[in-house]
């Protein structure tokens, strides 16, 4: 946000706040109602027609397509899994992903486990596996003697030589440099080798048991080494990536891969949108049919709830996943629960002969304990889900928790405020409009 935008926003907030206070103090309830309606309608317009709310929310891989991988480090005779090793591996993976130019990659350690999770949007499984291949890189002599391993290689990079030939530049650690220069010198000095392409004049590069390349030693590699002879830069790039893979300081195994194609992701977003709209419409229709004017207030609160919910999601930078969307729709149904509880209370109070105003106030007070206890239990379940869940399940737990909290705020504070305004503006009278008249003829008035 630029400074100007910030100032504009701040000014708007101050003006609106001032207006709100003015309206409140002068008790022009009708105006206040109109004002609230306008703000909500404006927000809804802004986030649906003018901009998509999705612009502000990070989507999970299952909604935008991409690959998620879980890697686990294992001890090998050569390397034991250590904290440093894992940190280094994380760094190597990050660097490679950056080089690939993936937008918003998500790469993190799993606490208390030798495990790394890599989430890359718009990347196929094949590409992702290339990045974090579990390979064991070895440079070997013709007779099988190992010259250097992935640990000795600091970096491999594709480049164009001065003669404009594609090549791979190898940068070794000091020890790797010494070993590699020794070996290449020895190979170069083997009788008959300079200029020959015989097997003994080559250095074989193995990734696990696969031969990647076997370049001929054309000169001893005293400083950094380079491999030439590629058809094009892409090929050099591919080899460089593979060599870098070998530099992973730990033996890691892929335990889980999930590749969601972009098409499937888009389809899920489209379907989710339909499900949310229909779910919302169905709930609103039911509330209107059953509670009439109160239902209208509840529906209005539901819209505010949705705005609050999505704003919170964007604010905490949460990732919205497919189960998360299911959580949102589910929460729509459950969000009206608090209002249902309160409305039923109000109806009961009206039946005892109270005025609407008195019934409303005591309805809110008496309904509160039930709402609180019910929601705390749901929050307990959500907290447990968050603790034990991974990936999308965590997303579900987060959306569920936000939903419960946001629904309590809107159902208790917002609905109550709106109802009070309605009463003070003398817009409500017990009767059919509240869905309270039919069953209690003549008793609701006092």
């Amino acid at each position: 946000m630029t400074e100007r935008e910030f100032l504009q926003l701040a000014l708007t907030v101050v003006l609106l706040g001032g207006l709100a206070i003015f309206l409140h103090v002068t008790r022009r309830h009708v105006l206040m109602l109109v004002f609230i309606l306008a703000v909500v309608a404006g927000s809804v317009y802004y986030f649906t027609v003018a901009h998509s709310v999705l612009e502000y929310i990070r989507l999970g891989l299952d909604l935008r397509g991409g690959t998620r991988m879980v890697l686990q480090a294992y001890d090998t005779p050569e390397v034991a899994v250590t904290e440093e090793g894992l940190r280094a591996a994380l760094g190597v993976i990050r660097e490679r992903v950056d080089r690939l130019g993936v937008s918003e990659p998500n790469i993190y350690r799993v606490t208390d486990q030798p495990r790394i999770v890599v989430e890359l949007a718009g990347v196929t499984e094949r590409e992702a596996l290339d990045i974090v291949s579990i390979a064991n890189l070895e440079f070997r002599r013709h007779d099988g003697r190992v010259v250097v391993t992935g640990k000795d290689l600091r970096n491999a990079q594709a480049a164009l030589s001065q003669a404009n030939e594609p090549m791979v530049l190898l940068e070794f650690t000091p020890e790797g440099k010494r070993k590699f220069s020794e070996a290449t010198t020895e190979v170069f000095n083997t009788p008959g080798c300079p200029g020959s392409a015989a097997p003994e004049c080559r250095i074989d590069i193995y990734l696990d048991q696969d031969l990647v390349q076997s370049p001929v030693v054309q000169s001893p590699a005293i400083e950094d080494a380079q491999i030439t002879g590629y058809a094009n830069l892409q090929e050099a790039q591919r080899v460089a990536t593979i060599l870098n893979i070998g530099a992973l300081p730990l033996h890691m195994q892929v335990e889980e891969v999930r590749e969601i194609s972009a098409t499937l992701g888009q389809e899920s977003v489209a379907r989710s949108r339909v499900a949310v709209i229909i779910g919302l419409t169905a709930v609103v229709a039911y509330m209107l049919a059953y509670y009439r004017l109160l239902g209208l207030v509840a529906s209005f609160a539901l819209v505010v709830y949705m705005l609050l919910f999505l704003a919170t999601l964007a604010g905490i930078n949460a990732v919205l996943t497919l189960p998360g969307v299911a959580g949102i729709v589910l929460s729509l149904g459950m969000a009206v629960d608090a209002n249902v509880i309160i409305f039923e209370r109000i109806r009961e109070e009206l039946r005892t002969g109270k005025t609407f105003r008195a019934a409303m106030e005591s309805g809110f007070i008496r309904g509160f304990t039930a709402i609180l206890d019910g929601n705390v239990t749901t929050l307990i379940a959500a907290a447990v889900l968050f603790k034990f869940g991974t990936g999308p399940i965590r997303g579900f737990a987060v959306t569920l928790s936000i939903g419960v909290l946001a629904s309590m705020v809107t159902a208790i504070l917002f609905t109550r405020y709106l109802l009070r305004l309605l009463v003070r503006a003398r817009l409500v009278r017990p009767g059919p409009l509240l869905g309270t008249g039919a069953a209690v003829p003549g008793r609701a008035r006092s």
Partner: protein
Amino acid sequence: MTGPRSFVSRLDFIGTRRYWFLLSAILVGISLLALGGRGLNLGIDFTGGTSFAFTFDRPVTTGEVRAVLEGFDLGTSSVRVNLGDPREVFVKTRFLAPGEEDAVRRALEERVSPITDASTERVSALIGRELVLNALWAVALASVGIVAYLSYRFDFRFGVAAIVALIHDALVSMGLVSLIGIEVSAPFVAAILTIIGYSVNDTVIIFDRIRENLKHRRKESFAEVANRSVIETLPRSINTAVTTLLAVGAIYAFGGRTTQDFALTLLIGITLGAYSSIFVAGPLWVAWRERAERARRGPLQPAAR
């Protein structure tokens, strides 16, 4: 007052509890049999394995795909063609190494038809076992947390009755999922925990009313207070169940295949949650309180019921 309300106020949920207990016992029995016999149709999230969703550039048959898989000794894999769009094929098989997976895909492209869109999931047995353990822990921990909270806010008997209703809902939901044969994947854990949350929430609303009515109506028996409370909260129980089912129904009908199973599990569970609050949790609490009351009055007083 006449009309529907007086009909509702004459309903007796508590007095008829034996029938509801019997119904629930039958449901639990069937569920245990189903879970013990058929078990759950566990997806690769739990068992480990590979699942592909391939879209070919033309409609294909399971036979074509299976023929290729047989070449890789994967003849026993599950192969399913989408009836709505026969270009789309779902394959479920064992955990494949990256090389194997590539080879299978290439062979399919060569011998069947080019693949235009692919989604793959591979999960090792290690991750699967972890998920099972985590799921069990999660359900156990959530239950303990809920009982603790309810014991603190209400009393221990309410807590236990709510938990029995909760276990009833979770168990019967899983039993029905097993009977229907829904494939169980990671979000299933979330679905079960949501059901647990809903079930307890629903029960709490009724218990809250019992707690309140116990204060105001000291002359009524436990059964009368509980029945009154259930009836008073009935409109709320029904309305919330309806709105929630409407919302979940929307996911089921329009959310696409990935969330369909999840939504179906929720539909089952939420219906059960609404049922159990009225017919299991409340009556159970009454049965327990009455038994305790009889025990307190001592053995000289013959049990009236």
